[in-house]
């Protein structure tokens, strides 16, 4: 009853407020070589807009790349030297926008907003002059110059497939044995429960590795998504994520008695949050705080960000050690919980 009455409310709230493709309060960095009246007022325009927060003021070009690698900023604005002078003398000035296009939708939206603010400013200062000022905006899409959607969905699909295969299938096969009564027979045999559980998980581990290989081959050769980082790192992280998913599957199977329940829990508790809260479909930055906090417990969020960092941005382990550590912690946590539950059933 609660579900029937509550569902529409929850859905309206989630889809209406939380899951929008609109980007608000995106963190940006500014590299201002001019530091004159025009750039200062333009920067404050950006800051005043609800779409942007100026997070960092940079001093040299090298820092731009570093900030993007850290993943804190989505857009960088670079004013060349003598911005105001050029504007006054030649009625023309240049500004460069660099966007993190590993998420092409967000990059597109942000550069759109930024251009609008710049044009708005340009029109305002031109209004009482005969000769119009022109501010040329030059855009650079970092990591994904062609704004290919595949750059976004390949990591998303990887997270999704692995979660589906590992968690759901592991949960279902173990619960199936419970339903059939064969699990009991295996438990009275001299096979150790740990070995039984490992034996159940290994086929799905292998299957998932094959899945990763086929997804990567397809995306590199058919979709032309490059693998910029180390392929070994990518595999290592994927196997870590597979282990997290497998332990989750084990945890689910330890707690439920029927295949339907296992399926339902895998779908509701994993598939939907993964779809909505991993950052794959909807940018997490715009979600209200409760949802943002919730997204932290979704393993796929961390894996998605790792795959993007390694595959698209070509980053190494030193930039993603935090995410790796979180996944590792999740694996340990789920595994201990699953083993504990298994033991309680036996006692």
């Amino acid at each position, binding site marked *: 009853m609660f579900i029937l009455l509550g569902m529409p409310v929850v859905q309206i709230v989630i889809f209406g407020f939380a899951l929008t493709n609109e980007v608000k309060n995106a963190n940006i960095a500014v590299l201002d070589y001019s530091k004159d009246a025009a750039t200062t007022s333009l920067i404050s325009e950006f800051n005043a807009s609800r779409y942007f927060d100026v997070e960092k003021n940079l001093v040299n070009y090298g820092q731009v790349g570093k900030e993007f690698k850290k993943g804190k900023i989505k857009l960088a604005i670079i004013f060349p030297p003598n911005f105001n002078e050029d504007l006054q003398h030649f009625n023309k000035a240049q500004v460069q926008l660099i966007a993190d296009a590993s998420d092409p939708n967000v990059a597109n939206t942000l550069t759109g907003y930024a251009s609008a603010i710049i044009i708005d400013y340009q029109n305002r200062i031109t209004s009482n002059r005969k000769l119009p000022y022109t501010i040329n905006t030059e855009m650079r899409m970092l990591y994904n110059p062609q704004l290919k959607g595949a750059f976004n969905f390949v990591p998303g699909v990887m997270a999704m497939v692995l979660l589906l295969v590992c968690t759901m299938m592991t949960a279902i096969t173990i619960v199936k044995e419970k339903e*059939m*009564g*064969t699990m*009991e*027979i*295996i*438990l*009275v*045999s*001299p*096979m*150790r429960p740990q070995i039984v559980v490992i034996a159940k998980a290994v086929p799905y581990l292998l299957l998932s590795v094959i899945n990763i290989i086929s997804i990567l081959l397809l995306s590199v050769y058919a979709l032309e998504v490059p693998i910029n980082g180390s392929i070994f790192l990518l595999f290592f992280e994927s196997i870590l994520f597979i282990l997290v998913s497998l332990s989750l599957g084990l945890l689910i199977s330890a707690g439920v008695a029927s295949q339907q329940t296992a399926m339902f829990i895998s779908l509701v508790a994993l598939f939907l949050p993964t779809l909505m809260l991993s950052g794959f479909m909807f940018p997490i930055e715009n979600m209200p705080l409760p949802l943002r906090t919730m997204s932290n417990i979704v393993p796929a969020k961390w894996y998605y960000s790792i795959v993007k960092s390694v595959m698209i941005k070509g980053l190494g382990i030193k930039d993603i050690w935090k995410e790796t550590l979180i996944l590792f912690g999740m694996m340990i946590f789920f595994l201990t919980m699953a083993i504990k539950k298994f033991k309680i059933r*036996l*006692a």
Partner: protein
Amino acid sequence: MSNGIVISANKLTKRFGDFVAVDHISFEVNKGEIFGFLGANGAGKTTAMRMLCGLSLPTSGLATVAGLDVYKDNEKIKKSIGYMSQKFSLYDDLTVKENMQFYGGIYHKSNEFIKNKTAFILDQLHLQKEANVLVRSLPLGWKQKLAFSVAIFHEPEIVFLDEPTGGVDPVTRREFWNMIYQASELGITVFVTTHYMDEAEYCNRVSIMVDGRIEALDTPAQLKKNYGAASMDEVFLKLARKAVRAAD
């Protein structure tokens, strides 16, 4: 060792919170004996059996199975027992032969042993033609007989049967009991729970559980005499009516 004791329970108890599922039961089972373990639903039969199989640890009391302690050696016990549950417990999606290979494998039997034993069982059950048929497509009676053969595949000292003949026709049940007698003649101790009172008559000795306690334990003939009953059915009803605990 022909009359040695293979199962002994002394004040064996299992509590789930406040609920005492098995309440200080004590009994002994001799080697090669067919021991009937009777009781209404919810009387605690299955819980008691699970403790003896090493699937669940007792709350208190002592018990040894095949000379091994159920607390310390519950993993070792598993090697010397076979088990067949009330749920049909073979893999539906494997063939008759594959099922036997699988169970032989999980009991760490050699390929040689598995091969010979498989041939022997197929011969015994007249299933040679069905060796490569999926278990799913066998009639229930055949499946039950096969499940029993698989439960004693690794030649255990004791086999635990939890309502093995549920839903099986009388003819097959008779055949099933013939198999049980054969196993018993080979020296395998049979510990069986059942709801069929005619089957209780086939046992060497019978215990009747009521509300977690063993109310009666003797040969079927002696029980009938003690309770002035014509059949085991009557004995059981007289005892089971005393139950205060609701059946589940």
